[in-house]
């Protein structure tokens, strides 16, 4: 079945390929042919010379805007990648309002749902990507394994494809046209200070436990904060949801009511909006339990302060990002962008991201760039044999340590909900503002 679809895709390419090449002019046509013929290494001279002059401007959230990646691109592919890091809101804003200010957008899937329909990006032709098949099924069908359940929220596969090259309509099943190539994703949960908490934390409901009065925090990015709040309310049994990723007005109102009560009772010490804030709150002991991101936990630990990324029985809130192409890209630059994206999936970056505690979208290729011990620790939930180093070479974990939450399958397999943008977004934001102002 899979083979059949693949063959038909190949046919489709040879039909559309001509018109596409007609569009690419001059030297770019040669390079296009080079890519098409699969000559990834040993480029024709023209290609190799021209591509050095290409500069691709990528912007995105801090998580994957890593200078080491730009350096490696220069080394492996020869062209220049300029990175700009912004917060999620600014990313969405810029992608819509300044379409010519970027070549490659590194955005999250829930942002993609907002941004892609604005028509400032173009979908990618998956047949031009050698490593397409290496992409985790999570992003293609929504199922990590054939029998896993599809989580609530904006699951990446639901906004991962559009109907055609010029379409902004999301496709219900995988097509040849992908909106974003997944790059980086993770399962988020609560971070805790085990040295300051003397009982086991097992549920999202513990965030609002009066025992942590004045020592809890939640993130103040409405579209993500509301999900954490929903996980908490559901765990407390206060609210039941049809779909936490797309709540009704009534569900939103109830959720916010619970949060406002907690805020008025003095449950929260602060709300955080940026990565650094969450690290500082935790490291300074202002907060002992809060919504947190994986590298923030690592950052607290690297200061020698105990911090656990606590797996909870209700499951994780997951998020994922990917890179997509700006609408205005064409010719040589477009080819360079494809080249870059294929390279992104080819393993080096994947290994780099895995070592940071994120997950690579193409685990199989990343494995080739990781030692057996690293792979065992990060992906298989095994105890580390030796010291586990960060990509920069800093010791992150000592021998014997086991990753919080266990293996890739355990963590990504128990995702309860993906970050999302709701139909009732406007209402949700207004209610969230009430919560902040309360």
């Amino acid at each position, binding site marked *: 079945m899979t083979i059949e679809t693949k063959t038909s895709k190949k046919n489709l390419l040879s039909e559309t390929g001509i018109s596409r090449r007609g569009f690419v002019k001059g030297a770019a046509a040669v390079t296009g042919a080079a890519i098409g013929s699969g000559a990834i290494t040993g480029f024709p001279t023209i290609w190799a010379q021209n591509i050095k002059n290409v500069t691709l401007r990528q912007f995105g959230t801090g998580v994957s805007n890593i200078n080491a990646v730009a350096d490696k691109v220069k080394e492996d592919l020869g062209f220049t990648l300029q990175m700009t890091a912004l*917060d999620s*809101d*600014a990313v*969405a*804003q810029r992608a*819509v309002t300044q379409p010519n200010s970027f070549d490659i957008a590194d955005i999250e899937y829930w942002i993609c749902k*907002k*941004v892609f*329909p*604005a028509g400032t990006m173009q979908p990618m032709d998956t047949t031009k990507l050698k490593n397409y098949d290496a992409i985790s099924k999570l992003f293609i069908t929504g199922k990590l394994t054939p029998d896993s359940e599809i989580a609530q929220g904006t699951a990446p596969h639901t906004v991962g494809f559009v109907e055609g090259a010029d379409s902004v309509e999301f496709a219900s099943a995988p097509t040849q046209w992908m909106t974003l190539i997944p790059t980086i994703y993770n399962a988020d949960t609560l971070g805790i200070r085990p040295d300051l908490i003397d009982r086991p934390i097992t549920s999202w409901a513990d965030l609002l436990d009066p025992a942590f009065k*004045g020592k809890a*925090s939640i993130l*103040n990015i*409405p579209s993500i904060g509301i999900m954490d709040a929903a996980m908490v309310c559901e765990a407390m049994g206060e609210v039941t949801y049809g779909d936490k990723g797309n709540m009704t007005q009534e569900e939103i109102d109830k959720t916010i009511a619970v949060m406002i009560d907690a*805020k008025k009772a003095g449950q*929260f*010490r*602060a*709300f*955080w*909006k940026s990565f650094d804030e969450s690290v*500082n*709150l935790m490291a*300074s*002991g*202002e907060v002992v339990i809060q919504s947190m991101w994986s590298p923030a936990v690592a950052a607290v630990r690297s200061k020698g302060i105990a911090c656990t990324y606590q797996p909870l029985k209700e499951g994780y809130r997951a998020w994922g990002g990917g890179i997509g192409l700006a609408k205005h890209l064409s010719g040589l630059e477009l080819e360079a962008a494809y080249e870059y994206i294929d390279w992104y999936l080819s393993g080096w970056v994947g290994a780099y991201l895995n070592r940071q505690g994120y997950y690579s979208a193409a685990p199989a290729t990343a494995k080739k760039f990781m030692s057996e011990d690293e792979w065992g620790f990060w992906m298989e939930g095994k105890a580390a044999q030796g010291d586990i180093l960060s990509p920069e070479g800093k010791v992150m974990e000592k021998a014997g340590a086991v990753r919080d939450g266990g293996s890739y399958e355990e963590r990504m397999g128990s995702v309860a909900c993906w970050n999302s*943008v709701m139909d009732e*977004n*406007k209402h949700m*934001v*207004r209610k969230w*503002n*009430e919560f*902040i*102002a*309360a």
Partner: protein
Amino acid sequence: MAFDTSKRSSYFLITPMAAIFAIFLVIPLLTIVIVSFWDYDEYRILPDFILENYSYLLGSSVTWKIYLNTLKYAALTWVFTLLIGFTVAYFLAFHVRSLTWQIVLFMLCTIPFWTSNIIRMISWIPFLGRNGLLNSALINLGIVDQPLEFLLFSDFAVVLADVHLYTLFMVVPIFNSMMRIDRSLIEAARDAGASGFETLKSVIVPLSKPGIAIGSIFVITVVMGDFITVRLMSGGQSASVGLQISNEIGLLQYPAAAASAVVLLVTVLLIVTGLLRLVDIRKEL
């Protein structure tokens, strides 16, 4: 004929200023006003003429709470900056006799302002925190047993940071006004038998009014529109009008943000008009 030429030349002379005002003030403001009537969804703004942005804004209890909160910050900051600013300016103007020392001390006041606003604000966080310098000191001295939680991420912290940041805006214009006061007026008051306090009340304060008014306008407009101090010092737990606008912009809700901005502008203009009615600052400029 001569009249015409002079008229023409004055038009010519005001053109650059008028152009700058039109391009950088009038046109952007008009755009904001126009956009405030537009509609929006998650990722687009839709040209339209709707009153929903305003009706929601003015009808929502959140808005009133936020305005009340912002006005509270503005009022508290104003009171403290005025008291401190007036005292500092008075000291500089009347107690420091030599001009050199006045300049030296005045420069000293401005030195902290050579560092970034944000850094001066953020430095309060480790100082006031639960395990911060102040709490550790208080506990070690045996003054309190439990760390004082209200010090950080509270209204107290916001007002403290605002006062710290903006007192100079009060000092400078008041000092300027005080330096213009004819010293013989004070002598005359003393000769007429006025006590120190009476001189202050009847001579110095009335003559410093323009400086006080200018300082107040600076402080109030800055605090009314501020969002970063409120966000950082309240730990994101309090809202201000500026923060609301910044959130709306962040969520691509430009029309809602524009409506909020228009309402804020009107509010601040009303406050400033009120202040100008009380004090004629032109007299002193």
